[in-house]
């Protein structure tokens, strides 16, 4: 472990990779700040740029973008009550009232310190937990992996569905179906290509992510007449006020940060959960344990109410890397995009990554510390200037997002068919989003589809075509019980919703 850690430090602290983290944090902050464009779009836009990079540098850049996007989302939540990212919605509960009371600078500082602390504490947990889990997961067999992926798909459908589990499951099945287009990995038989040469290699992951997130988001801004721009005076330096915190304010924050970073990390590790759930849970948790007098302050500019979700969402971001790096199974939609990126670099995350490519495994973990420092030291003082991006009008923003999405896909394949296909997919995604079909289950289904088929094939061949592995192996059995519990819980919630 020490040797791996040293390799990671060496890789992450190279001048090139430090620049990658800084660029990632900076770009992520800008993109995350724009309402509508979250970390998934931000990372998707980065994928084509990183194609010439080595995998470690690319992942370091993307991890920086992830943190930056969450930080940027908090900024727009606090300053203009327009969360750029779902994970920062709860930050606006107390952050925006603080900003309205002339304490915007202080609110941003609290958010930055809380994010830094949450991210750093969670990175420490990751440092300890990831290698242990990687060792445990070496005992996993194909059947267990198959079961684990099914749990991941079900839970992301359950969490992302916002009460519409069946719609999320349709999207999961649709994503899995899209993954079967092209060549079958074992038999080399091409499936569902409709005699179109462009589909014989399958659908490009970057194309799908860009179309369903970045491009459809741009269409959505126009479609819903969303006014995403704000006047520069709303985010001027004069309006922000001081960013200094008093001793008593720091004292108030410390226990909150301690509690919610543990909570956030644990929620982040769970497949399907993520920054959004962690931040809401943390805000609710802190409110429930607060004294009666303090409780009244929640929602009106409470320091605890702002520090809790900010700590938890960053801790959850770090936590979501645990299943990605150790099991090769993404814990959230964003890490699903990262998994796709890793696979396109020829890197297979999972327990072997820790042993075979320690430089990638450890450098990502170390870069998280660097990323948190960058956000605190560089981005916080620059916020009054970065926040001016919010003043970009939508009639300039939308064509630029469309252009970067198209170029990103075109530069990988140099194939015009990809542009046509992407535009069609974006239009379909737009309609599906209007109908409340969530997109993360589609992406996760698409990414896990190939692996799911491979593991199911192995499990069935080992068991002579019998599904008995479901109850014969303790790990698989436990995971299938979890699946049943998730389904029953969704049915119960559905019945309750109907009755109410």
């Amino acid at each position, binding site marked *: 472990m020490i040797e791996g850690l040293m390799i990671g430090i060496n890789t992450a602290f190279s001048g090139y990779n430090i620049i990658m983290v800084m660029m990632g944090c900076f770009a992520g902050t800008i993109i995350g700040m724009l309402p509508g464009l979250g970390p998934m779009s931000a990372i998707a836009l980065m994928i084509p740029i990183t194609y*010439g990079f080595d995998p470690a540098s690319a992942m370091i850049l993307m991890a920086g973008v992830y943190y930056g996007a969450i930080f940027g989302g908090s900024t727009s939540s606090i300053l203009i009550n327009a969360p750029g990212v779902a994970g920062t919605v709860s930050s606006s509960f107390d952050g925006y009232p603080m900003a309205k009371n002339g304490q915007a600078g202080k609110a941003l500082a609290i958010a930055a310190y809380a994010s830094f602390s949450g991210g750093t504490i969670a990175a420490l947990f990751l440092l300890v937990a990831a290698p242990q889990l990687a060792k445990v997961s070496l005992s996993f067999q194909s059947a267990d992996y198959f079961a684990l992926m099914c749990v991941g798909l079900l839970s992301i459908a359950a969490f992302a569905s916002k009460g*519409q589990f*069946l*719609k999320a*499951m*349709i999207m*999961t*099945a*649709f994503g*899995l*179906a899209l993954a*079967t287009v092209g060549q*079958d990995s*074992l*038999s080399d*038989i091409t*499936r*569902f290509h409709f005699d179109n040469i462009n589909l014989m290699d399958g659908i490009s992951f970057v194309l799908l992510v860009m179309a369903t997130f970045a*491009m459809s988001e*741009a*269409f959505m801004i*126009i*479609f*819903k*007449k969303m006014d995403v721009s704000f006047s520069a005076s709303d985010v001027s330096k004069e309006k922000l006020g001081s960013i200094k915190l008093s001793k008593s304010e720091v004292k108030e924050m410390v226990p909150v940060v301690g509690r919610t970073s543990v909570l956030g990390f644990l929620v982040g590790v769970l497949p399907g959960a993520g920054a959004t759930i962690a931040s809401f849970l943390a805000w609710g948790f802190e409110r429930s344990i607060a004294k009666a007098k303090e409780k009244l302050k929640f929602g009106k500019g409470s320091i605890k109410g702002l520090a809790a979700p900010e700590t938890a969402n960053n801790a959850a971001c770090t936590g979501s890397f645990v299943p990605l790096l150790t099991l090769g199974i993404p814990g959230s939609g964003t890490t699903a995009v990262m998994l796709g990126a890793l696979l396109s670099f020829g890197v297979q995350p999972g327990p072997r990554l820790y042993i075979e490519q320690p430089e990638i495994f450890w450098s990502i973990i170390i870069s998280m510390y660097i990323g948190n420092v960058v956000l605190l030291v560089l981005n916080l003082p620059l916020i009054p200037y970065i926040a001016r991006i919010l003043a970009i009008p*939508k*009639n*300039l923003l*939308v*064509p*630029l997002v*469309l*252009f970067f999405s*198209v*170029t990103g896909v*075109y*530069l990988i394949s140099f194939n*015009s068919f*990809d*542009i*046509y296909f*992407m*535009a069609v997919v*974006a*239009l379909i995604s*737009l309609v*599906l989003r*209007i*109908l*409340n*079909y969530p997109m993360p289950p589609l992406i996760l289904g698409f990414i896990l589809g190939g692996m*799911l*088929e491979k593991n*199911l*094939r192995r499990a*069935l*061949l080992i068991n*002579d*075509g019998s599904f008995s592995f479901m109850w014969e192996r303790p790990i698989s059995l436990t995971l299938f019980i979890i699946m049943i519990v998730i389904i029953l819980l969704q049915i119960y919630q*559905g019945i309750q919703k109907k009755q109410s």
Partner: protein
Amino acid sequence: MTINYTKISALVFLLIFLVYSYLAGEIEVFAFDEHADFNARTFPKFISYLGIVVSFLTLVLSRGEDDEPFGQFEWLKVFVLFVLVFTYGVIIKSVGFFLSTNLFLLVSYYYLGVRSYKVLLFCSFPVAASLQFMLHGLLDVYIRDPFLEFLGVIS
């Protein structure tokens, strides 16, 4: 049974998965694989069963409480942008990256209401030029560009 947008979409998905299921059965497999425990048809078949079940349940159980009326949205603008993206795809190979990108950005900005020439020019030419320079000059990524080749800017 009342009709709502969710039911219509669920019906569409049901049809898609039924067709998918049929096509999955039509996948040609090797003769020795025909009766194997797992072949190229097996997984698509499982997916189609899952898809058929969930879309059928959605069709039956949905009450469409969360459906938004479609009429209030900017359909035309989105369609025009879609056509612009499509056209960008059509011309990018024949006229090249630089010119097609500038045309796409200029027309899109103008269509969305930008009228200042300074803004139009400042937000298109430098964007396309800097990206082309970054790719061509710095990262050594070749982009076919007949227009710039004709002008002699790139070889």
